Each structure stands twice: as C-alpha cells, then as structure tokens.
C-alpha cells in the first residue's frame, strides 16, 4: 500500500486546491466586513451556471471565460454590498447574527431561484483539460495527476498569490488591512470604509463565481450544489482562523490530505468523521484556528 503514498499526497494537494478556491474569498470578506456569508455556496452555483451557459453560447473553453465571470460577479458583489452593510450596521440586535441570518436567507432565495430558472437537472461544463491526465512513474511508484485538477491547483495558488500581493504591496491592500484591524482608526486616516468594503465584497463574489466554473469542470453543477460548498468553506476558514487569509491554503490542504488518506488507506465511510474530528480537536486546542491568529 506504500505504492499509493505519492498518489495520496498528490490527491491531498489537488482536493486542497479546490478548497482554497472556495474559501479564500470567504475568509477575505470575513476579515474586512466581519460577515459570515452563508450564501458563498450560492455565489459559487451562480458563477458555475454563468460559465455553463457562456460555454454553450461561445463554445470557448471555460478557463478562457473565467475573467468575464469574475467581472460580472465582482460588479454584482460591488453593487450588492451596501445592502449587507446596512444589515451589519444596524443599531438594534447583534449585527453578526443579523448578517448570518441575512446571508442564510439570501442563500435560500438564490437556491430557489436557481431551481426555477436553471431547472433541477445536473450539468457539467466541458473543458479540453478534463480529458487528460499526467502519469508519472518511478520504479514501483506512480502518480496520476488529472490535468483539470492540476489546473485548479494552479488557479488556487495564483489567486492566493495575487491576493497576497494586493493586500501586502498596494495602497488598496493597506486600506483593507487597516479596515480589518480597526475600522474607526482607518476611517480617521482617510480610508473610505464603505467603498473599500464594496470592492472587497466584489472581489470575494467574483472569486467565488470563478471557483464555481472550475468546480463545474471537475465535478457537476446543479441549483442545489451550494450547501456542501458553504459548509466546506466555513470549515476551512474556521480551521485557518476566522479572517486569517494566510492560513487558508494550509487549512485547505490539511482537509485535502485528511480526505485523501482516509479514502485511500482507511475506511472511506469515516472520511467526513475524520474531517469533523480534526476540526473539533483543533478548535479545542486553539479556538482561534490552527495558527491562533483568527479573530
């Protein structure tokens, strides 16, 4: 069974890559706006369907459609953010709870709309990359790497690097970091909190929508798909530490490895139990996530 070790490691990275794509925007939105967006899965679903229909209309490979999907959903997110801001900045009740309930309701509404508009059948987004895989062999060891999943990993790492650069090396990033640390002080230093939050929410929604297209190439899409992805983004972000962006890839890869090793070496029935157990133990030992840097 040692022969499968390289495969288990590679599969862990590849599954982790998918989790990075769905969780990184979620973490960014929480870090800046302090909102747990339970509609993340539905943004992924809507992005997937835009990619699906664009692919039918244009016949372009879905990877070439990613920038367009990002722009469309970034604009939607930018325009939509003030509504969420209004919910979060209410004087009555607990804003965090209100945000939670609001986005949960939003997710339900999008799901219902999705069922009505897109129907209940599952679909798949065809990509030229889905058909091939790399096969590497060395002695008794071998690894199969599906090209589409490898592209997903590259995409996840690229998004992570770009976000890292944006946050650490640009004036906009400085404003975002200032906002996440102290909203009032950032405002006093001339940061336009509302505008910056809108940009951040737009980026988050755009990234989530692009991830939906990628997921449609690797798996299948349906109006009901969002729930599972919401849960896993939440897992990854909690494990990484709420709002701690740099922890997201590590948490995502950890969950990927747990699943990969359980599926290959142990009883697949207990895969999700293992994921829950890891999450539970980490939170018990370090309630602020793996790196104790969450909010």
């Amino acid at each position, binding site marked *: 069974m040692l022969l499968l070790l390289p495969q288990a490691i590679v599969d862990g990275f590849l599954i982790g890559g998918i989790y990075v794509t769905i969780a990184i925007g979620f973490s960014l939105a929480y870090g800046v706006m302090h909102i747990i967006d339970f509609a993340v899965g539905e943004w992924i679903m809507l992005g997937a369907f835009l990619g699906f229909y664009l692919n039918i209309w244009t016949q372009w490979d879905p990877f070439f459609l990613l920038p367009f999907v990002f722009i469309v959903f970034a604009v939607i997110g930018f325009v939509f953010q003030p509504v969420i801001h209004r919910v979060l900045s209410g004087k009555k009740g607990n804003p965090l709870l209100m945000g939670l309930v609001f986005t949960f309701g939003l997710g339900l509404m999008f799901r219902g709309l999705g069922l009505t508009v897109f129907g209940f059948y*599952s679909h798949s987004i065809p990509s030229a990359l889905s058909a091939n895989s790399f096969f590497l062999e060395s002695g008794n060891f071998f690894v199969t790497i599906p090209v589409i999943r490898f592209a997903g990993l590259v995409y996840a790492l690229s998004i992570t690097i770009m976000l890292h650069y944006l946050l650490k090396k640009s004036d906009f990033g400085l404003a975002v970091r200032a906002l996440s640390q102290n909203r009032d002080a950032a405002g006093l230093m001339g940061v336009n909190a509302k505008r910056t939050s809108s940009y951040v929410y737009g980026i988050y929604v755009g990234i989530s929508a692009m991830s939906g297209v990628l997921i449609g190439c690797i798996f299948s899409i349906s109006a*009901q798909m969002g729930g599972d992805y919401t849960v896993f983004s939440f897992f990854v972000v909690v494990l990484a530490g709420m709002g701690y962006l740099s922890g997201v890839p590590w948490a995502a890869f950890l969950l990927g490895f747990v699943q990969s090793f359980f599926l290959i070496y142990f009883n697949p029935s207990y895969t999700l139990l293992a994921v829950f157990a890891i999450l539970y133990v980490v939170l018990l030992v370090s309630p602020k996530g793996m790196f104790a840097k969450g909010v």
Partner: protein
Amino acid sequence: MKHCLIAVLIFTLFTANPLLAEEARDFFKVGVITSLSGDLATGGNVTKRGYDLWANTLNAQGGIQIKDKKYTVKLFYADAQSEPSQGASAAERLATQEKVDFVLGPYSSGVTLAVAPVLEKYKIPMITGSAESPLIWKQKFFYTFGTVPPVNYTGATPIQTLAKMNPAPKTAVILGSNDAFSKATAEAFKDAAEKLGIKVLKFNIVPSGQDLTPFMSAVKVLQPDLVAFGGHDEELINLVKSLRQINYTPKALLMHYGVTEPAFIESLGKDAEQVFGASVWTTSVHAKSDMLWPDAAAYGKAAEEAFKVPADYTQAGSSTAGLAFQAALQKIEAVPPLSEANREALIKALEELEIQTFYGKLKFAKEGEYYHANVGITPLTIQIQNGKVVIVGPEKDAEAAAQYPLKPWGQR
C-alpha cells in the same frame, strides 16, 4: 347541565377530528409528498412529472369512473425538501389539514421510511412511485405500497447479464453512497456478484457527495473488471468524471438509478456511452394496457410532449402509482371523501390488484420480504448506446447486444 356539557364536549371532539369532519365533494384529494428541493430535487421533480401527467391525463378524460359518475383528482403537494423529517411533517399536514383521501408517495427510500409510519397512524393509503430500498417492505407497513420493485429484486439482473459476457468479469469493486437506497443497491450488486463467482475486491459505503477521485486511484491499482456504484444522479456523473480524469477504464461500469436520466447523457456526452444500469421500464418495453396510455411508447410520447424530455422508469412508476389507485377505487366503487372503512377496503383492493399497464404488469406482493412492493414486472439491464437507453438483458427482452468491454475513455 353536566350531561349537556359532556354531550357538547363529545360532539366537539368528534367534529374536531380531522378525519371525521369531511365534506362531500366530487373530486378525490390526493396528497403528494416528494422532494422538490434539496439534494434529491432531481428525482423528486421527476416523480412530480409522473404524478402530474397521470392527474392531468385522467382529468382530461373526466376523472375516475365510479358507477355512473366521474370524479376528478386534485393533487395537494408537500415538499419533503429531501429530508425524512420534513417528509414526516408534510405527511402530518396532509393528513390533518388537507384531509387527503390517499397519498402518492415520496421520492427516495429515506423519506418514505419516515413518511410511512405517519400515514399508518392516520390510516391513509400511500403508493410510492420511487422508493427502492428493501427496508421499506421489510417493515410491513399496512398502508404503504410501491410500484418500483425493491433493489434486491432488480439489482441482480445487470450482474447476471454481465456474467454472460465473454470473457466474463472476474473481479469487482462495489461501492454505495450512504443512504438507504444506495446502500441497498450496493449490497444487491455484491450479493449477486458473489453468487455468480465474481470476486469482490473492495466493498465500501461512502459519504454522499464525497469526491471519490483518491478512492478510484486506489481502485485503479487493483484493476477490477467491474466497477459498480449505487448512488444518485449527481454522484454517478461525478464518478464517471473521476474515472475519466484518472484515465481508468474498467471492463464494465455499472450504476443504478440516474443512468436513465437525460441529465446523465447530456452531462457526460461520449463518456456516458456503454455505462450499464438497472431499470424496470423504458419506452420500448412490451406492455399493453387499456388504462390512459395503450403502451409504453404512447406514455413516452405523452411525457415528451408534456415535459420536452424523455421519460424514465421513475416518472413511469409514479404515473403507475396513480393508475393503481384509480383501478382499486373503481373496484371498490368508493366515492370521495373516503371514510376509514373505504380506505381499508382500498388497501384490500390494492392487495388483490393485478392489472396490465403501460408500465407492465402491476401486482403487489401480499406477503414475504417484498410485502406491498410491485413484483409484477421484469427487471432489465440497460446500457447507454449512441446516446440512448437500450435494453441489453435479459435475453428475451434485449433490444441490442451489450457492448463489452468498455471502450477506453481516450478512444471515444
């Protein structure tokens, strides 16, 4: 005064009982519990099509002829949201608030297992058009029937077909998703494979919706001749995509429900070709009837006109559930609203029912492990050939020879 109060109290209790306070009407109230949202929305909506088609076709002809009058049917929908607990609540509501005469049952075995005890309590007959777990029939619910035979009745057929291939598969990896139907499917495949001398290298129940690519990478090392999977529509599509992505083509790939759905072929295109499945009905089965649709082809045509997609066995089974009630009501000549005695007579009539429908022969078992399940029809092995569902077994029903072994993904 005291006696007067007691009398009023007794009267109030009687009139407040939802099953006794029934109004005279010229239509049957039919409760429909199915999953219109949630993870099982695809199958749930397919059953809805089946129930709708039966009701609309019947009502267009005036309704159910009882003595010298026709009674239409009116469907009262309740969304189980793919959750057994929601299904049970829906059954409670249909029984106590809508006061339905009978129920057309849920999609999925899990929801059926939750709904059946509620309807037993209220003594309301139910026929499910799509629930295949043997667990339902082992519980011996008096008021619950099913038109689709249980998977332990149907699941062995495709394995038997595959065992006759040349060379026959010698090894298999069998897995099932973690829900009542899928687990039962996987177990049926396993039992049949072992009986026919196919060595089962791996048998696993996996979490629903799990990405199985790493698991299939491990399976690839074992190089089984047959990969058989019990799961629902989306899971089947994802499994084929996983096998495609790791570039592993077993000699045969067998699945159950979902292969006959249009979405399976549409989503996978060439990769759906030659996948085997188990079914009990296609539009080409030989079945003649004098109820609503003369044969399977006529039903298929009507379904395609109404919904613009081909009908599968779930949709057909759901319409047949309506036909069963229709025939049994005509037999007992009960008019709406149905009293408790009528409903009990209806159960007896259903047990004695033996009719020919577009779906095939309908006959519910009166005892044994298939109690109240339909055992009148012949299980079929189907295969996707040229984008169509084709019967390839048993031999007497086959429309074409099975294509075996599976053509490698890269050569399609």
